[in-house]
């Protein structure tokens, strides 16, 4: 996924700092789907957890936006909050979510069912990745961030990011092996 969200302007950020609800809504609209999707797939398709995480991220963002100094990319700052929120919530959550309860309703047409199966399999494979690989893969997938940006978000070196992505992708390839023929 390579389409970047619309660049957040300094005017929007300045308006958010003054408590402008419309500006905050505009900021929210720019990132909401990416934040929600990362959280959704991070939490094994648990919509309630994804919604809760998204709310926490945007509330934190609004509370702390006065401290955003603008010398870092806004998206880097935001995604760091997403990662921290997801990891913190995971630590607090003891129960695991039954994946079958959380996936979207099955489609009706044959092609759609087949497509749904692929999506479900990919989602399940992502959900099975260890946290550190899962979050790296999701960040890379939903926003085309550089290794350096991801390193800043994940608080590790760019080399470690590269290693986690590579290992995460290889684990996914193993888990999705049955689709390999179709892909070729």
């Amino acid at each position, binding site marked *: 996924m390579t389409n970047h969200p619309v660049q957040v302007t300094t005017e929007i950020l300045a308006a958010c700092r003054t408590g402008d609800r419309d500006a905050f809504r505009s900021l929210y609209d720019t990132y909401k*789907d990416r934040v929600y*999707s990362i959280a*959704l797939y991070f939490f094994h398709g648990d919509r309630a957890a994804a*919604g809760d995480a998204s709310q926490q991220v945007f509330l934190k963002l*609004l*509370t702390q936006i006065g401290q955003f100094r603008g010398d870092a990319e806004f998206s880097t700052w935001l995604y760091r909050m997403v990662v921290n929120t997801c990891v913190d919530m995971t630590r607090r959550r003891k129960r695991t979510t039954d994946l079958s309860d959380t996936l979207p309703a099955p489609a009706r047409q044959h092609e759609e069912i087949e497509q749904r199966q692929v999506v479900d399999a990919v989602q399940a494979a992502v959900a099975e990745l260890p946290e550190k690989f899962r979050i790296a893969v999701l960040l890379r997938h939903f926003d085309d961030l550089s290794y350096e940006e991801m390193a800043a978000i994940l608080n590790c070196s760019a080399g*470690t990011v590269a290693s986690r992505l590579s290992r995460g992708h290889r684990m996914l*390839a193993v888990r999705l092996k049955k689709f390999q023929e179709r892909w070729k």
Partner: protein
Amino acid sequence: MTDPAAERFAQSMLAELPLVEAPESVWRGIEARLDAGERPRPAPVFRWPRWAFAIAAIFAIVAAIFWRASQRGWIDTGHSSQTIAIGQIGTVTIAPGTRLRVVADRPEEHRLALQHGEIHARITAPPRLFFVDTASGTAIDLGCEYTLTADDRGAGELHVTRGWVAFVWQGRESLTPAGAMVRTRPVSGPGIPYFEDASSELKRAVDGRLDVNAALGAARPRDTLTLWHLLQRVSDTDRAPVYDRIATLAPLPASIDREKVLRLDPEALKLLKEELAWTW
């Protein structure tokens, strides 16, 4: 080892994973929490007359002079607690019976010296902007919230509730994440950090007279935090068993070079920490 074909295949499969639209209920929840006052509202706009600006400016200058002067002095809280702002990056609540001093208050460095007592710091800023000196070392904020106690000799405790804190003393560093604590001692500086929920056996093994075997036996996967620090505090002969116990608790990738870790190669230790830290 890389496998470009497998990685390309995985990426093509990931392309099937759709971006999911956030339901409107998320925004409604945010609005409800905002309306419930989770964020301070901006002050209503009020236009002051010009003469008020002049008076306010004079008052501000005088206040700033007094404030600056007080910043350079000691703060003794006596019987009550006190909260001070740390520039624009956070606050420190100073417990009763505490004595400390503001050493530096610049955008690139905020530094307190804690002589004795207890402080609770809440900092939201990039790492290494906020420092607290004690007699047994310096607590360096890495973006966090923590409670630090110290006595005049430097004995004390650091409890981290959010983020990370580094405690350094004469080249020795203890990295303490949320949920963990470390004791500091006069002369020897920071001890070995451990999670608050670690077993009493593990705490005893690293807090008192160091008992490597007991620490290894009591460690859980999460306690690799303690073992990672232990690696750097034990003798050469004890280092290999510590590393092997870490590898048993948290299987390590091939990129971690055991020999380099045992030689305490800084880069190898850093890589090992990054691998383990995800479980801390």
